[in-house]
């Protein structure tokens, strides 16, 4: 199969370029993805940090707020206690302490809907009754008025006072007086541990000193009341102070921070997206450039390969052309050699035949006068009746030399003409052999008797080769061979010529044929100088020759082998330096031809 350079190159390089481009795209994509992921992670992290920061800021503001207000409430309570405890609350508390709450406390709590233990309404009512008894204590109204005055126009919305039993003995919201706070964690912390407890709560509605307020943020603090001048806890205050404006400020700040954080986040995300887009674009551009370069490389390589292919084809054509020319010149050379040989061969019979014919012609010319005389004599003799004739020989004597010249030996003339016939036979033999050799009048392949061919070839060869070389034929009967006779003749002539050239001086060439029924073997053996070992492997190589430049083309044996192989045969060679060489052409015999022979 022919090697299609351009096609194979195109397919292979396009395939590889495709793979390269594909893997580049894949890796670029991978890189883009991981970059994107990294960006997203970064962005998420950044978001979290911002978020956390905002949240922490909010929480710390609230904590600060609580702490500040608690401290404020503590001071407030101190002031309040210092101002009112000894004068107003201590006696009132002492009296309220006298009211028994045991029967109310003894009432069990019940679980509410959510399962928490809450005091039942009768218990609440019981404590409300306690409250009513407390409010009924004289001086309550004055105390209440004092508290109201003290707290009026402040941020304190409500004040409660608990005794050490946990009973609400005063509340600016009167309905809450008498309530039991013993289980309340804030009260317990302040009353039992002396620790102020504060919490930030939101109330949708709240009963403040100056009426009910709505939607307020409040800080409630349970504060231990210390007996002035000592560290003895004597009661617990609960103070509700309004922090709504602070909290609003905090929330506003937090919102602002969140907004900034979100804006930052958005910016980061946008930057990330822009970055990704830029990277994508860059990588696309990169891919496009690499793809373009690959395409350029492919086109350049394709051009080079196509040019190379054209050059190869041209060289092949040139080589083919040169080969044909050389083959032709080899043919012409061997033809020329053959023509020279034939011309010489023709020259010999031509020379003696011409010589003899011209001599016979001259002889006939010289016989003309004697013949005329003889004819005249015969006429005279016919007309004479007697036995004697008298001739006047004066004129004949004058022409005696002509008569003498005409006394030609006729048998010699006959011999001459016999030689001429011999010459003509030689020439026609040559013509027949020439015709048989070329076989131009035959179809290109035919069933042929190779013995006949070899006789012709040997005859032709003998005209060329030295007379010191004897050419012997040892031919055995052969089956027919399907062949191009003219071509095989060329092969045999080449082998015999080679054999002759291998012989210096005198020698012998034997042309032998053998057969085993299936193959025909034609061997040409010479007593020449043989083929040296280093030459032997090359004898069938194209253009290999041991002859001086200009004398041999090195094609003879190469062509001979080509011809024999085209006939389905082969050439074998056996050689011994100094002894001689035998070339054997082995050809397949015609099977069909052997059948009638066998029948």
């Amino acid at each position, binding site marked *: 199969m022919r090697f299609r350079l351009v096609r194979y190159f195109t397919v292979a390089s396009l395939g590889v370029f495709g793979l390269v481009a594909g893997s580049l795209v894949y890796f670029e994509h991978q890189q883009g993805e991981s970059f994107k992921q990294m960006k997203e992670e970064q962005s998420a992290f950044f978001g979290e940090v911002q978020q956390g920061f905002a949240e922490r800021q909010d929480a710390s503001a609230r904590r600060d707020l609580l702490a500040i207000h608690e401290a404020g409430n503590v001071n407030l309570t101190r002031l309040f206690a210092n101002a009112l405890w000894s004068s107003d609350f201590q006696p009132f508390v002492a009296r309220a302490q006298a009211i028994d709450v045991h029967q109310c406390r003894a009432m069990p709590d019940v679980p509410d809907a959510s399962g928490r233990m809450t005091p039942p309404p009768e218990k609440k009512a019981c404590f409300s009754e306690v409250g009513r008894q407390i409010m009924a204590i004289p001086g309550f109204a004055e105390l209440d008025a004092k508290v109201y005055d003290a707290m009026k126009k402040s941020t304190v919305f409500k004040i409660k006072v608990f005794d050490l039993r946990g009973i609400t003995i005063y509340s600016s919201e009167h309905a809450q007086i008498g309530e039991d706070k013993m289980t309340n964690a804030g009260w317990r912390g302040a009353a039992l541990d002396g620790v102020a407890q504060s919490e930030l709560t939101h109330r949708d509605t709240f009963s403040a000193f100056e009426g009910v307020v709505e939607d307020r943020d409040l800080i409630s603090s349970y504060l231990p009341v210390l007996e002035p001048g000592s560290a003895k806890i004597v009661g617990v205050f609960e103070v509700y102070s309004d922090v709504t404006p602070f909290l609003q400020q905090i929330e506003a700040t937090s919102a602002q921070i969140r907004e900034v954080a979100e804006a930052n986040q958005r910016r980061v995300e946008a930057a990330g997206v822009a970055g990704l887009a830029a990277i994508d674009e860059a990588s696309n551009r990169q891919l496009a450039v690499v793809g373009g370069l690959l395409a350029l490389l492919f086109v350049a390589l394709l051009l080079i390969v196509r040019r190379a292919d054209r050059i190869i084809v041209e060289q092949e054509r040139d080589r083919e052309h040169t080969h044909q020319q050389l083959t032709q010149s080899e043919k012409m050379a061997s033809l020329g050699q053959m023509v020279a040989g034939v011309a010489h061969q023709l020259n010999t019979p031509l020379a003696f035949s011409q010589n003899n014919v011209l001599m016979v012609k001259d002889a006939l010319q010289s016989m003309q006068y004697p013949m005329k005389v003889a004819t005249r004599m015969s006429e005279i003799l016919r007309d004479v009746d007697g036995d004697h004739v008298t001739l006047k020989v004066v004129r004949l004597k004058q022409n005696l030399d002509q008569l003498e010249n005409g006394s030609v030996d006729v048998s010699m003339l006959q011999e001459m003409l016999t030689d001429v016939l011999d010459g003509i036979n030689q020439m026609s033999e040559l013509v027949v052999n020439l015709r048989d050799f070329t076989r131009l009048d035959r179809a290109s392949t035919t069933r042929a008797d190779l013995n006949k061919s070899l006789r012709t070839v040997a005859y032709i060869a003998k005209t060329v080769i*030295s*007379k010191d070389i004897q050419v012997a034929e040892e031919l055995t009967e052969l089956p027919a061979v399907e062949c191009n006779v003219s071509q095989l003749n060329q092969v045999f002539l080449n082998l015999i010529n080679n054999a002759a050239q291998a012989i210096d001086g005198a020698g012998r060439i034997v042309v032998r044929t053998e057969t085993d029924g299936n193959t025909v073997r034609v061997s040409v053996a010479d007593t020449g100088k043989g083929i040296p070992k280093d030459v032997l492997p090359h004898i069938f190589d194209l253009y290999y020759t041991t002859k001086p430049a200009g004398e041999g083309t090195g094609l003879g044996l190469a062509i001979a082998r080509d011809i024999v192989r085209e006939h389905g045969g082969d050439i074998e060679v056996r050689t011994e330096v100094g002894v001689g060489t035998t070339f054997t052409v082995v050809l397949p015999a015609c099977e069909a031809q052997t059948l009638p022979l066998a029948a």
Partner: protein
Amino acid sequence: MKKNGRILCVDDEPNIVRSLQWLLQREFEVHTASDGQAALALVGANDFDVVISDQRMPVMSGVELLREVRRLSPRTMRILLTGYSDMQAVVRSVNESEVFRFINKPWNISELPKIVAQAVKIARTQPAQAPIEEDGEMAAALADEASILVLDDNPGMAEAVTEAVGNGAKVAYTGNLAEAVGILNNEPISVIVSETRVGSIDATRLVRLMKSRHPEIVTIMLSDESDFETVTTLINQGQIYRFVPKPVRPGYLKLIVASALRKHVSLKQEPGLAGRHEVEATPAAVAASLVSDVQSVASQVAARNPGLAAGFLGSIGAGLRRLFGATAH
């Protein structure tokens, strides 16, 4: 009828030998042989005037046979007959066999007997000379007289010849035919060493005509490329002494130039010897074409060197007249 000559015809083709015998037996005593050995045996036993031999024969070629004949019987004239354009054979027939004529087959039946008759006459009337030994020794005695004309496009050939002869002879060189004519006219030349073509003009004509007018001049032809026809003509019409295909090895050049000089000496001392080298007449048309070529070369040379124009052309004209007689005008 008296047979005036004993001749030997040799050819391995019996028909050829018979034909030659029929053709020649009327005038000559014809002997025949079918191979070289038989021929040599006959030459040893008989005194032949002429031996005619075919070139292409088994065992011993015609050239080899005639070389032996020349050795065995120097007075016998040798004619080579061939039907094959074998360049090597014709060169060897000059150099080894020194044949009188080289005749192609088929021969001319009216010419061949005349050539044989001429050869017989020469063999019988002209003294024979023992073959000149090619030993390369220059004869000192002739040093002052001998001069060699080298006619070649390449001056290197003159140098080679000068080197070969040493002090043995003067060497004149020219690369054109007109100058050659001038030199030949002005000084006695012993040996001409010439290329077959000089300045793309056929120089063999000059050599042939010189030999026909001045048989004592010995000619050596050196050639780059030559054909069978040219050499045959040089033998028959120029009786050249040697024909050497170029390149020539210096040793061989020395050998043949020395032997040519001695040949010239012997031809001069005994003018009768030259008769053995009688040439076939060069056709008048060839002489005329040579004269016109020489004149055109002379006018070209004159045109290049105006200074010597008048005298030079005049001397060439005179030279042509003197050298070739009536053919010049």
